[in-house]
């Protein structure tokens, strides 16, 4: 028995292919990127070693700082706007309302759709001349509010946040719904017998018991915001005038449009570290017992 399950050669056959692919594609590139980030290099020939200069530039360059600020604002919007909406929807659906399954299915659909499609769709929604948003505004007599949502600095950033918030509301709703549903019904019965109102029950029983899943949602929405790429890349490309730039799009254009491989790698290392640090911080900050 033991010999069958501890044969070294068999174990190697089972594990090695996975470890090789995983190591070569996921782990090794982190070290390679870290090394690149110390170079001044345009991808041709050998780069020059410049120490931490790329990082110094990153924290002094106004374009990079703006990108970081934007992604933090985006994370803030996800946490303080998107998650509360998801939570409210989850609590309503978990309290066995009519049509629970239908609503859950419908709210979740945007989550599955490719961000490229979502971005193209929203660029049509925002279109200044024929877009859905301006047409609706005109139809309800608010035509004076119609504007070029993505084309002007004052509205571009907020307009580029909204599609992602819209898309993932259903995702966090589903996670929180599952969390709320996993609470034992006896607890709710006890609360009912004690005469607790629905709101009271939600605030003092359901939400505290959902802490583990709320933490997962918090981590996912923050990390998702920090590494957002697809939506901005397709929707605005970081424009107009870098107003909607985020670290990922800046990294991408730095590497593939201006061929500054070293600086671009520094940005990618920054994104990884930022995600890692915030994951650890959130997990430390909210201890789920």
């Amino acid at each position, binding site marked *: 028995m033991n010999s069958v399950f*501890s044969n070294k050669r068999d174990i190697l056959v089972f594990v090695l292919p996975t470890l090789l692919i995983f190591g070569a594609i996921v782990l090794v590139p982190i070290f390679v990127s870290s090394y690149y980030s110390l170079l001044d290099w345009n991808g041709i020939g050998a780069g020059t070693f410049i120490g931490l200069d790329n990082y110094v530039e990153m924290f002094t360059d106004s374009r990079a700082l703006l990108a970081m600020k934007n992604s933090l604002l985006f994370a803030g919007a996800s946490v303080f706007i998107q998650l509360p909406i998801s939570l409210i929807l989850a609590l309503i659906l978990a309290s066995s309302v009519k049509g629970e399954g239908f609503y859950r299915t419908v709210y979740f659909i945007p989550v599955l759709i490719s961000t490229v499609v979502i971005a*193209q769709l929203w660029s049509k929604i925002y279109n200044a001349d024929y877009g859905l948003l301006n047409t609706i505004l005109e139809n309800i007599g608010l035509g004076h509010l119609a504007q070029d949502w993505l084309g002007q600095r004052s509205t571009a950033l907020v307009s580029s946040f909204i599609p992602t918030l819209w898309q993932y509301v259903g995702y966090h709703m589903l996670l929180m719904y599952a969390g709320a549903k996993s609470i034992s019904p006896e607890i709710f019965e006890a609360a009912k017998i004690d005469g607790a109102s629905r709101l009271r029950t939600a605030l003092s029983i359901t939400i505290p018991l959902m802490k583990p899943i709320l933490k997962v949602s918090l981590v996912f929405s923050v990390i998702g915001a920090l590494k957002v790429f697809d939506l901005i890349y397709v929707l605005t490309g970081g424009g107009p005038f870098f107003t909607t730039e985020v670290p990922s799009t800046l990294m991408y254009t730095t590497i593939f449009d201006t061929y500054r491989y070293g600086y671009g790698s520094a940005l990618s290392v920054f994104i990884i570290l930022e995600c890692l640090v915030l994951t650890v911080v959130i997990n430390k900050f909210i201890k789920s017992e």
Partner: protein
Amino acid sequence: MQSAEGTVQKTKASSSIGKILLQVFLIIVAIIQIYPLIWLGFFSLKDNSEIFSGDVLGLPKQFLWSNYTKALSDGNVLTYFANSVIVTAITIIIVLILSSMAGYAITRMQWKFSNATMTLILLGMMVPIHAALLPLFKVLSSLNMLNNYFALIIPYVAFAIPLAVFILGSFFRGIPRELEESAVIDGCGIYRTFFMIILPLVRPALATVAIFTFLSSWNELMFAVTFINDTAYQTLTVGMMSMVGTYITQWGIIGAGLMVSTIPTVIIYLLLNKQVQNSMIAGAVKG
């Protein structure tokens, strides 16, 4: 007594008003979530004169299916679609084979570094694909492997492995030892035990992993846009971007392309919605 009944009726009345308001709220949210997609369906069937005459909101006057044939043939959407199917299908198969074997060896076979290996692989869940982009691009271009299905398949497999090993591993843990023991007593080797007895038992986990991998590779953009620039190998995400560039003002054709790349996902979801929802939950609640 009477007054007590009165209050009961009153609370009943107010709670039914509350219920109606709640339903109205839920329906409004449903419209916000779904109407943009319905609108996409509408304008994919319209011609420019209808869209640009200010009637963008409603049903098409007549269904212009030629937008779809144009998108599929002239817009190359058929090619992109086929490429996405090929890349996604091969990715899913490889992920299922590799990570079920690795997950099994880590959780059920006895060796020194099994826990360390699991920890290492799980760490991978926190790594964004950004770090791999440039190093992989350099390697692929020096190997002349850009514009090749495997330029996408291998990275997609690698980044799907951590979650897949995690999900499958936790299923393997739940299988009673006796099953393996009796298989071995009956003379099965490790390979027969694994493929004939254990794997069929974890079918739900395999489905979860397949759904997850489908979504991530079908929708992936950053690698696809970087590693592939030959139309013959472009997947839907990249293809959509070039199509939008080509048909910049022809919303109908663009809309048709977007619909074609979305419909498979929506069909899979409507057929398996419970399973898809459970997969997404399983993917999140990873530790």
